[in-house]
């Protein structure tokens, strides 16, 4: 956001809050009705609102202005004259956050031949008009985590993008959390063991500013940019791609030793409740990716097992090869395989946003948050629930009532 915009926005926000507050108490300020921007404002009354973090508000009133949520409250009356969209028997939740995707990312840019590419910026490769983005929005996704592909030990920096009503995207955070991979394929080009231990070897050396060496062999060249990027990385949240429990353990140990706070991404090969408990015991958040209908029952049970073991679990579509519609299907599959319904909404909203280090403004319907909201005629995790309204960035992207009228 350009800096010059901030005072104007702050002013608008205050004015809108005031307008909304007035509206709730009684009386509509004339200036509010005259303001041409008022057409972008939205007041919703929702039968049930899943706030995103697990809390549920019944008969919720949500006021949206200038792309932000300015008021959320249970009950309350609205005076005549304020146009309220009422969804009395509907269930609303924050717009879905697909935390791990490569939509719009050019394949070539996401995959580099060297093992350490911490200076890759997912945002640089992102096409804000990629055709899949429209499909993602249709499926209820309003925020995307753009995460570099897991083919390098240090993959680069993730980015966060918000979807616009026209199906394009705006980059919300250009240089997001650093991304690592402790999966075997990330090491395929190097003379180190192609295991998580190999990834540790490579990364620990790099953190100390040197290339790893193997007996007798010369060190692989290491770019100065890569070293500089890793050298300054001493704290903060990071994502790390892992498949197995052992990879998760090594990754968490390695990154924690550096002062970093990892979130595990992938986790498709956790074999049974015992391994799930071992992963949960690491005490880090988990994002399970790429759940699909062809997965084995063991894989489909991973979110439920991790949750049962006490981990926070998010879901993400995870790969460029997966259709944007997959996130909702993955949610249904996770619930059908034991993920408690109470954990379903956080898994695709607040927990997913937290993985991107963006927990404050995204993945929740809360005052000050980006106004991303979905209204369904049933529970959001039920695949049969029909989407009635999609609000992204404060604007209506889809309205079933308008569509039905056509």
């Amino acid at each position, binding site marked *: 956001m350009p800096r010059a915009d901030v005072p104007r926005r702050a002013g608008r926000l205050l004015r809108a809050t005031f307008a909304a507050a007035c509206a709730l108490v009684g009386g509509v300020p004339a200036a509010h009705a005259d303001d041409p921007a008022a057409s972008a404002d939205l007041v919703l009354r929702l039968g049930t609102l899943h706030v995103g973090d697990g809390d549920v508000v019944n008969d919720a009133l949500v006021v949206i202005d200038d792309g932000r949520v300015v008021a959320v409250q249970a009950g309350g009356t609205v005076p005549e004259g304020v146009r309220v969209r009422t969804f009395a028997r509907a269930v609303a939740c924050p717009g879905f956050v697909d935390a791990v995707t490569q939509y719009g990312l050019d394949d070539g840019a996401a995959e580099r031949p060297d093992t350490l590419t911490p200076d890759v910026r997912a945002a640089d490769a992102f096409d804000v008009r990629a*055709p*899949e983005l429209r*499909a993602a929005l*249709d499926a209820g996704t309003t925020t995307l985590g753009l995460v570099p592909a897991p083919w390098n030990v240090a993959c680069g920096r993730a980015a966060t993008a918000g979807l616009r009503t026209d199906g394009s995207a705006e980059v919300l955070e250009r240089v997001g959390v650093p991304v690592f991979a402790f999966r075997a394929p990330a090491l395929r080009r190097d003379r180190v063991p192609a295991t998580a231990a190999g990834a540790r070897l490579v990364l620990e050396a790099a953190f100390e500013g040197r290339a790893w060496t193997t007996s007798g062999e010369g060190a692989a060249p290491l770019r100065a940019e890569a070293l500089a990027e890793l050298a300054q990385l001493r704290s903060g949240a990071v994502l790390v791609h892992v498949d197995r429990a052992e990879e998760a353990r090594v990754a968490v140990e390695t990154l924690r030793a550096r002062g970093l706070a990892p979130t595990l991404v992938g986790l498709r090969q956790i074999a049974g409740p015992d391994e799930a408990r071992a992963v949960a015991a690491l005490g880090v958040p988990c994002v399970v990716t790429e759940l*699909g*209908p*062809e*997965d*084995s*029952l063991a894989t489909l049970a991973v979110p439920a097992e991790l949750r049962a073991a006490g981990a926070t679990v998010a879901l993400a579509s995870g790969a*460029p*090869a*997966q*259709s*944007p*519609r*997959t996130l*909702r*299907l993955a*949610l*249904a*599959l996770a*619930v*059908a395989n034991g993920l408690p*319904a109470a954990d379903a909404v956080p898994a695709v909203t607040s927990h997913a946003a937290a993985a991107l280090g963006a927990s404050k403004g995204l993945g929740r319907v809360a005052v000050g948050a980006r106004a991303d909201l979905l209204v369904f005629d049933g529970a959001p*995790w*039920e*695949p*049969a*629930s*029909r*989407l009635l309204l999609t609000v992204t960035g404060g604007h209506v992207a889809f309205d079933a009532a308008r569509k039905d009228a056509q």
Partner: protein
Amino acid sequence: MHDAAGAGRYAPGPVMRRPGLALALALAAFPAVARAEGDAPSPAGADGAVVALVGGEVRPVSGPVLPRGTVLLRGGRIAAVGADVAVPEGARVIDCAGAVVTPGLIDADCALGLTPWDAGAGVPGADARAIDAFDGWDERLGTALREGVTALVLGANREQVLGGVACVVPTGPPGAAPLASDAAVVLNVSTRGAGGGAPGAFRTATIRGALQAALDRRIEVERWRRDLAEYEDERLAVEPTLEERLLLSPELLARMRLWTPAERAAWREATYKSMGREKAYTKPKNPATPPRAPGDDPNLDALRDALGDGATPAARRTLLRAELEGDVDAALRIAADFALTPVVAGGEGLRRRTAELARAHARVVLTHLGDTSASTTSAVARRSPGLAAALAAARLRPALGTGGVGAARWLRLFAAREIAEGLPRDAALAAVTLWAAESAGVEAQMGSLDAGKRGDVVVWSGDPFGATSRALHVFVEGAEVDVAAR
């Protein structure tokens, strides 16, 4: 049927004219028939045990929903469905209060249980019968069954223009007999999605050529069969007939074999006269050699056999895979030109050709629902939402197929997704039961809760399309499956 009973044994016509031999042949063929199409191995529910599902919300599909209905299963079949069905004494009564009772679900197009074609063994074509590649012991069948999917339509191969013959199989018990081994001839007008395969026009020409060649070959083969029958008839005329075998002593028979044809004819004439019979015997034309058989072409023969001989119209049911609207046009023209009963399986193209499909009385299958691919070359990824709803609104009675292997077990979730996109709930249930059965021509056996149909019934903990619902009881041919086993 003839491929099971009389397969490869030429000259059924003239032989059948002899009543004794016809009986013997029928007896010899009977076990083969029973094995091919029958109910072996015997289901546990066929022993006369009666199960009464009482008090649940019954959704028969063929009729209105019964808020508190009873479904009676007896002898592997549905015996009665209604609000006031008397439960016979000794019946096993299952209280279904709060539960939902539906027919078993049918995936209208999938690959679960099909052994992958061995690429090294050559490219399969029309001779690829899905039933031959079906492994009834595949353990994933059981996981589908426990999710309420009781039958599958297996569409043979999707890669070649001639896709072989589709079949309908139950998902259990392991090794159960197929429900229909010749459900439909498969023609892949478009190969999977829009990517890969030969260009559309080439595929269409190939299909037309193959169909024409198969029909020509049918004429050729019929002619050969008739010539061979005549030859056999005449040859048999100088051999002891069955009647003679039964009437004459072994010694006389043995001696008779040494007679010249003229001597034998003279003896016969005398015998028949003495028996007071009108002599039907004519002098043989005595052809020197049997007529030459047409050359070997398994692909064409398979297609010819699959197309049937006109006396069995169901055999001409043809599953035409057509994803884009151009493919649908081509599929309907092929069906019209060759008098096939079209079942068009596809996606986006169906939506744009609803009027044409309705005019052609085509069945439609919305397939590849389990595909999560985002590949830009895949037509599946480019489908827009609400396809099934649009097809149902056009009264096309769409069936739903996952197109997958593991995906088949989540059929209900894919149907649920269509509900979210506008398909009415009752239509969604029909699309994975009755309409699916109709697409494969097995609606007389299954697809709805009607007396006389197979006892394939599912009792759900709630809405069958709910992610949190599960199958509490699953019955296959009236026998309960252990749903707890994983």
